[in-house]
């Protein structure tokens, strides 16, 4: 029943090509699929993930398929999350911040025992469940096989272009549309700036976190800056205005955040965190 629902939902995922091969594959090299493929659709994600499912829903979760592969005592899990739009957002949030880029799908990041990559609306997460000698190569081998059976044709959000390039830490970009993701990428700033439509963040080599938030129009962005001033005051923080009024600095909970508006965008720099 669930598998049928999943297939129906998949047909509704627009703007992407249909995978040609069965996914996930039954066998990959000497790795064999163990047990049935599990499929969780919509709110059933809470059955699969107890704690942390909310972030997937925030990014437009549709369904996840889960398959385990074994080779003797070694095991690797493959989770393929399908979202209601391009999966770059959840990929950028979930990937390792200390991993290295790999060319899989529309982009991937490999860390010591796991690998994330996205392809159109799909996010694949390949995880070694135990430690073994050729772990990195095995994770990549399985990832490569899975990449061949996913949807394709995704594009990164335009908002990423608004992040400053100079000094940006490669691979640190995160795209988000919800408050839980915002809270995780810039915790001190998130409570001050509700109501945005989308956001992008990246680390800067200085240690700052740079965030760009987009509102529907310029008036809404201006109003959001006023609301941030009010929220900061209400929480016991302080607001420092520059002479020309173009930039405000918020002091909240030991952090300093500079904010500047332009058109319907607000750019934040989380300047420091006191010990």
């Amino acid at each position, binding site marked *: 029943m669930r598998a049928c629902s999943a297939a129906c939902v998949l047909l509704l995922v627009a703007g992407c090509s249909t995978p040609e091969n069965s996914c996930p594959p039954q066998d990959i090299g000497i790795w064999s699929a163990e047990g049935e493929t*599990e499929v969780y659709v919509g709110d059933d994600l*809470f*059955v*699969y*993930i*107890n*704690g*942390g*499912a*909310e*972030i997937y829903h925030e990014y437009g979760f549709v369904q996840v398929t889960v398959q*385990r592969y074994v080779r003797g005592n070694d*095991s690797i*899990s493959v989770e393929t999350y399908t979202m209601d739009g391009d999966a770059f957002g959840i990929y950028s949030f*979930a990937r*390792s*911040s*200390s991993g290295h880029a790999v060319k899989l799908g529309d982009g991937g990041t490999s*860390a*010591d*025992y*796991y690998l994330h990559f996205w392809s159109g609306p799909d996010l694949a*997460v390949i*995880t*070694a*469940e*135990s430690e073994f000698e050729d772990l990195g190569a095995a994770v990549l081998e399985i990832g490569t096989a899975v990449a061949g059976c996913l949807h394709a044709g995704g594009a990164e959000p335009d908002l990423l272009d608004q992040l400053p390039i100079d000094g940006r830490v490669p691979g640190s970009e995160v795209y988000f549309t919800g*408050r*839980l993701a915002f*809270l*995780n990428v810039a*915790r001190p700033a*998130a*409570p001050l700036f*509700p*109501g945005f439509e989308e956001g992008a963040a990246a680390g800067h080599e200085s240690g700052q976190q740079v965030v760009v938030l987009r509102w529907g129009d310029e008036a809404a962005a201006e109003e959001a800056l006023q609301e941030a001033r009010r929220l900061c005051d209400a929480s016991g923080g302080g607001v420092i205005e520059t002479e020309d009024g173009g930039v405000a600095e918020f002091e909240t909970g030991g952090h300093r955040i500079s904010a500047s508006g332009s058109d319907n965008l607000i750019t934040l720099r989380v300047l420091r965190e006191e010990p």
Partner: protein
Amino acid sequence: MSDKKNRHGITRRDFVTTGAAAGTLLATGVGFGEQSQAPPLDLAVAHGPDVAKNTAAVIDAHGGIGAFVRAGQVVNILPNAQGSHPGTSTDPVLVRTVVDLCKKAGAKEVRWLTWQSGKYFERSNIDQLVKGSGAKFIQVDSNDETQWDNFDIPNGVALEKIRVFKILEECDVFINMPIFKDHIGSRFTGSLKNYMGASHPTDNRLFHPSFEGEDLLRMEQCIADLNTVVRKPDLIVADAMTILTSKGPFGPGDIAKPQKVIAGIDRVALDSYGATLLGLEGKDVKMITDAHKLGLGEIDLNKLRIQEMEVS
């Protein structure tokens, strides 16, 4: 001081203590398995590569399993079984060790409680290891209201009511068995948050802010509120052998290997210590400060009597 090892491979001279009571513990020369007039330990911390030895050592440091479990008693346990990603579930060997100790103490029954699908436990390999121990697996039906108590929360700040499975109260001894790790909502999860494994899953979802203007950190206060009405733990044995330090609670993410097991009965104290393993302090985690403000335990590690030991 002798460096002769006891049966857990612990050397007396390996003892290290932290906190305000450290001087007292060292001055009295109290060692493993000895009686003393010193105040009871708040936290016992065992560090070493063997989770079973660490687990036995921290329980022994609190006076042994007999200080908590007596013959004929019913024991409820609440491990965290998240899945197969490394560092996300309570170590199966830790769970098995506690169950075996309870049985050895003569427990009539050890019951592993959950409302989760059995698949969680299959994925975490806990069930495979614990099945042979004689522990009874009790899966509470979240759709059967008769299995749930509906608590008013008179001291709640964010929560007014919560459903908790009845069977949690129906025991002589309750042992909470969390794993310390990262959490995207609260930065940290441990003893306090593990109680969400006993509260109703539908109610748990309401912990998260549901509308635009709602407090983003609501979940943390809700967890503290929940802890004011649930059964207090008779013992907490927390896993910090291999822990997820980012992308928690489900992962995969960065992993650290503190190789520690920690035991005590103060939820706030346990979590305040656990937070340090993720580079935080108790005061950095709103859930812990909220629980401290509600009088649920001590957040200041300097006010605790902590015994740290090396286990080879």
